[in-house]
């Protein structure tokens, strides 16, 4: 429920701040309301007691000495400003009235209620036509039948409540400010470490495998999280280096027996006079070479995917590199009835592993040559965008199906245009991607608007000297 409370972009400091603010304001308001209501209730009963008390006193004075005594009391002064005293005859004619300005203007009843026994008192609340103060009035029938009225406004009570309410608001404000302290704690011990972790994670995503989460001064849970995460990363690191050495071991363990088999087969090939046997041996030799390449491709792909591939970086001029590849592939393309064009407008020096880059582009060219029907056209092009270079191979072949576009980069996936005669095991593009990845680059493909497929590898191409110094 709370998750839907804020738009997605509102940062958590704001969320927490707003929630705390609302809660503190709400609870302060609730306190004040409840306290005000309770005070009003208590002050009301006190006021009733005061009125009854005073009524009783005035009744005693009157009963003892009549109206004169009352008049004397008032003549002596010291009468409170918010209290009124009246004495009326049973029929309502006023005998005495002492009403200060603050209590003026109330509509007193004319007669005491019927059946009110002498010396019994009755209370009633009178409203002022214009003012908000109420008058609590009491009446008592005196011994001679006249009626004594005593009234007291709640102005003082109200002022009292107002004072307390003001003090409560002040206390609420102070406590609100104090409640913002957890917010500061949250920012320092939770949010800031989380931000630092985000930064490290971003570095990880960008490929710096040494980055680790750091959470100094963070809450214990975050520190535990960072530790668990870092342990995981360390484990991945050790797996990567294990993989690297496993690759070396596997390569060695597999290559040496292959070398023994190949050697014997070659000797057999050279020494047999039987044409069929020689032919079989030749096929065997080809198969062994293919198997060796396959093992190497798988190992290189695995290492590249995990950035565990050792690159031999050198400063290379791309115009020349692509020109050489174009020249290498041109005869093979022509033999297949294809036109191979080179579209490299400018020279560009970059830092990369020449053999690995050649291998990646060669794989793209292999594919283009295999999938483009006779009479078609394949282009090897270079596009330079600021600090990136994109090496593009596009063709006039059948293009890629929607499934191809997403799946074609996976190992052992071959394009939908593949036929039984198309060579390859579907490892080529996985290798291309792994090699691009090893260079901190990427690989991609799309269908061209003008028809045919386009594959590319994009490599970082900052200042090669600066990059070389950084290595």
């Amino acid at each position: 429920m709370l998750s839907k409370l804020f738009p997605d972009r509102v940062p958590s400091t704001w969320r927490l701040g707003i929630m705390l603010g609302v809660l503190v304001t709400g609870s302060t308001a609730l306190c004040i309301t409840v306290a005000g209501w309770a005070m009003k209730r208590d002050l009301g009963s006190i006021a009733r007691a005061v009125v009854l008390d005073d009524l009783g006193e005035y009744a005693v004075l009157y009963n003892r000495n009549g109206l004169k005594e009352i008049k004397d009391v008032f003549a002596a002064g010291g009468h409170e400003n918010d209290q009124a005293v009246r004495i009326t005859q049973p029929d309502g004619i006023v005998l005495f009235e002492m009403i200060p300005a603050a209590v003026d203007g109330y509509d007193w009843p004319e007669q005491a209620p019927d059946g009110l026994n002498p010396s019994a008192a009755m209370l009633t609340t009178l409203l002022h036509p214009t003012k908000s103060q109420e008058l609590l009035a009491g009446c008592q029938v005196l011994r001679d039948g006249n009626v004594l009225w005593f009234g007291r406004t709640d102005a003082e009570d109200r002022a009292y409540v107002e004072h307390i309410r003001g003090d409560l608001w002040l206390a609420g404000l102070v406590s609100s400010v104090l409640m913002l302290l957890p917010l500061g704690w949250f920012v320092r011990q939770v949010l800031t470490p989380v931000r630092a972790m985000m930064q490290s994670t971003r570095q990880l995503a960008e490929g710096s495998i040494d980055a680790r989460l750091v959470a100094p001064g963070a809450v214990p849970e975050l520190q535990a999280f960072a530790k668990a995460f870092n342990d995981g990363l360390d484990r991945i690191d050790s797996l990567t280096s294990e993989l690297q050495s496993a690759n070396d071991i596997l390569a060695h363990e597999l290559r040496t027996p292959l070398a023994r088999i190949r050697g014997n087969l070659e000797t057999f090939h050279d020494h047999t006079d039987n044409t069929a046997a020689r032919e079989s041996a030749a096929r065997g030799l080809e198969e062994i070479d293919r198997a060796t390449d396959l093992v190497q491709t798988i190992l290189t792909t695995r290492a590249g995917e995990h950035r565990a591939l050792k690159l031999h970086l050198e400063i290379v001029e791309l115009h020349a590199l692509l020109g050489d590849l174009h020249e290498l592939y041109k005869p093979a393309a022509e033999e297949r009835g294809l036109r191979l064009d080179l579209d490299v407008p400018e020279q560009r020096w970059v830092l990369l592993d020449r053999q690995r880059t050649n291998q990646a582009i060669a794989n793209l060219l292999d594919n283009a040559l295999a999938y483009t029907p006779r009479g078609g056209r394949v282009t090897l092009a270079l596009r330079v965008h600021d600090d990136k270079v994109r090496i593009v191979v596009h063709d006039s072949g059948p293009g890629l199906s929607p499934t191809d576009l997403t799946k074609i980069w996976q190992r052992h996936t071959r394009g939908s245009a593949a036929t039984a005669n198309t060579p390859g095991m579907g490892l080529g593009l996985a290798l291309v991607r792994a090699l691009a990845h090893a260079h901190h680059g990427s690989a991609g493909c799309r269908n061209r608007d003008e028809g045919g497929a386009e594959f590319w590898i994009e490599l970082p191409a900052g200042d090669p000297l600066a990059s070389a110094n950084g290595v």
Partner: protein
Amino acid sequence: MNLLLVEDDTELARQTGRWLHDAGHTSTHSDCGAVALRLLAQEPFDAVILDVGLPDMDGYTVVEQMRARGFGVPVLFLTARDNVTDRVRGLRAGGDDYLTKPFAMEELLARLEALHRRSNQAPPQPAQRMVGRWTLDPLKRRLRTENEVIDLQPREWTLLEVLLANEGHILTKKFLLEKVWDIQFDPGTNVVDAMICRLRRKIDTPGHPSHLQTVRGKGYALQALP
């Protein structure tokens, strides 16, 4: 050539020894680096074939110690690791060439001969090199007869030169890719085959046997005089 073969895999050492013998070379086998260093001091060798993964020390260390003791004999590394970084490490340690397992006999021999030629200040090339009826013109990079001229593209010329330098020997696709195009992997498309066909069309005389033989499973060989 008198060769020192340092290889701990006995089967591979046996095969290689036999190939070297068949090719007219003599060889001494050692299965560890320490023995190899001792042998080097006792007998003059023309080249050393050195496995990188030896039981007592790796091949790089053997070469470093060889060089430190003043042996300048050319070294060809044999290794199961196929990547440029290891290749560069081998060459930096003082090796002269690098061959990955599994390898073809012809490639081993071609590389050994190239090393041998290099260390013995190869004899000056004959003033006139010929392929069939063609005379090579190295300055203009073209082929001539009395009344015909063919221009060769730079790579075609390099290919012809590499083939001619190893005339009569079968050269593997891998070897040609490395020497002619500086490519150390095998592209899926048979680019070498296409280039050989193109060169063949240029140098062969119709109606005569081809100068350029393709040997299935092994490679290509040039016969200057068919």
